[in-house]
C-alpha cells in the first residue's frame, strides 16, 4: 500500500510547472497547425526552425518513388563511378546522409560533400559529379538494390580544389 501521499506539487513549483505544461502544449499545437496548413505566424517566419523540434509529421503522405544518389570522378577526360558507400560508410535508418533530399538540395552541403569526396579518393580527380536515380516502387518488389538502366538526374558537379564555405561563411 502507498506509505505516503505526496501528490501535491510543492507550492513554489506549481505555477512554473503549469506554465511549462501550457507552453509545451501550445508549442505542439502551433507546430501541428503549421504542418496542416503551411501558414506560420509572421513572428515565426524568420525562424522556421522553431517548429522542427515539436513537429511529428512522420510517413504521412504517399511516397511511391524511391531514389539513390550515385557519384562519378573525372580522370584524364573520362568519368569513373565512385563507390560512395565505401567512402562515406555512415548510414542511418534513412540511408546514407547524402541520399536525403534536404541534403542534396542544399548547394553548400553538396559543395562540402564534393570536396570531401575529392580528398577521400586515393587519387584526387579533376572533378566529381553526383546524380540521382529515381524509380517508381512496385508493390511486392524490394527497392534494394536499385534497378539498372534508369536515366540519371544530375545533381551537382564539383571542381576539386574549389573553396568550400560553411553556412556561417567560414571557409574550410
Amino acid at each position, binding site marked *: 500500500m502507498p506509505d505516503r501521499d505526496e501528490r501535491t506539487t510543492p507550492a513554489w513549483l506549481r505555477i512554473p510547472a503549469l506554465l511549462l505544461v501550457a507552453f509545451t502544449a501550445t508549442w505542439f499545437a502551433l507546430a501541428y497547425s503549421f504542418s496542416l496548413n503551411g501558414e506560420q505566424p509572421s513572428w515565426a517566419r524568420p525562424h522556421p526552425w522553431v517548429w522542427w523540434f515539436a513537429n511529428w509529421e512522420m510517413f504521412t503522405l504517399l511516397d511511391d518513388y*524511391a531514389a539513390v544518389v550515385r557519384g562519378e570522378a573525372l580522370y584524364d577526360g573520362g568519368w569513373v563511378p565512385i563507390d560512395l558507400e565505401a567512402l562515406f560508410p555512415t548510414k542511418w535508418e534513412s540511408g546514407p546522409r547524402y541520399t536525403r533530399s534536404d541534403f542534396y538540395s542544399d548547394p553548400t552541403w553538396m559543395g562540402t560533400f564534393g570536396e570531401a569526396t575529392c580528398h577521400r579518393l586515393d587519387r584526387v580527380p579533376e572533378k566529381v559529379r553526383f546524380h540521382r536515380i529515381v524509380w517508381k516502387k512496385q508493390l511486392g518488389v524490394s527497392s534494394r538494390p536499385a534497378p539498372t538502366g534508369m536515366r540519371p538526374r544530375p545533381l551537382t558537379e564539383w571542381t576539386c580544389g574549389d573553396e568550400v564555405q560553411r553556412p556561417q561563411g567560414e571557409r574550410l
Partner: protein
Amino acid sequence: MGGGWAATRVAYALVCLWAHVPRVTRIADAYAADDMRFSRGPLWLDDFWCMTVPSATAVWATATTGLLGLLWGGRAAKPGLLTWLVASWLFMSAEALNIKAYDRLWTWIALGLVFAPIGERALHTKWRSPVARWLLLVLYCALYGSTGWLKLLEEPRWWTGEVLAYHLLHPWFGSFPIGVWVSDKAWLTAPMSWWTVIFEVVFPFLVFFRRLNPWLLFAGLLMHFGILSLMDVGPFSLIAVSAYPALLHPEVARGVWERWERFQATGRTGAPSAGEQEPDAAR
C-alpha cells in the same frame, strides 16, 4: 502512482543505451570528420568546434556514463539524466544533419523525467506529483494526435492501405523481406493502416479515461510492434513504448501492483486463509 516512473526509467535507459552505444563505431566518419562539417538551424557547433576522434569519444563516453547512472537509479538518476541530455546533444550537434524523430522523442521524454521522481526507491508504494505525467501526456497526445490527424485530413489513401504499402518498400526504412511480402496484400495493409490511423487519432481523447487507458496503451504496443517488425526506424518504437508505464492511469497502475504483490504473497506462502486476510481488511 510512482512505480510507473521506475519502470519507465529502466526501460528508457536501456533503450537509449541500445541506440547510443553503437554510435561509437561512426565517430571518425560522422562526428569527428573535419572534411564533413555541417551546420543546420540551431545546430551550429561545427562552426566553432570540430571534434577530434578522442574528444568525440570522450563526449560519447560521457553520455554513456550518464545513461548508466540513470539506469542505476537512486542519487545517480537525475545527474545521470542531465549528463546524458547535455552530452548526447553535444555529440549529435557535431554531426548536425540527421536528427531523427526518435532523437527528438527521447529528448522530450527526458524532459518529463527531469520532473519525475525517478531517483526514489520503492516508488511502487508511493503517490507522487502528476506534473511529469502531464508533460508526457501532452507529448504523446501531440505525437500520436498530430501524425494521426495529418494522415486523416491530408492523405485519404491511408484508408486503402496504399500509403503504408509503399512506405514498406522504402529503400532504407523498409524493404525487409516480410515488409515486401506484405506490401502487395491489401487485405493486410488496409487493416494495419486503419489500426494505425484510428489509434493515433483517438489517443488524445481516450488516454484520459481510466477504463480505456490500459486498452489504448495495449493497442499502441501492438502498433509499435508492427512497425518494429516491418520497418527499420531505429529504436523509435522502443523509445516510444519505454514511457508507457508512466502513461498508465495511476489507479490502474496501483491495482496492477497490488495484484502483483498478492500474487507474490500467495506464491510464497500459499493462498491466505480468510482469517489471515481479516487484519488487512480491518486496517
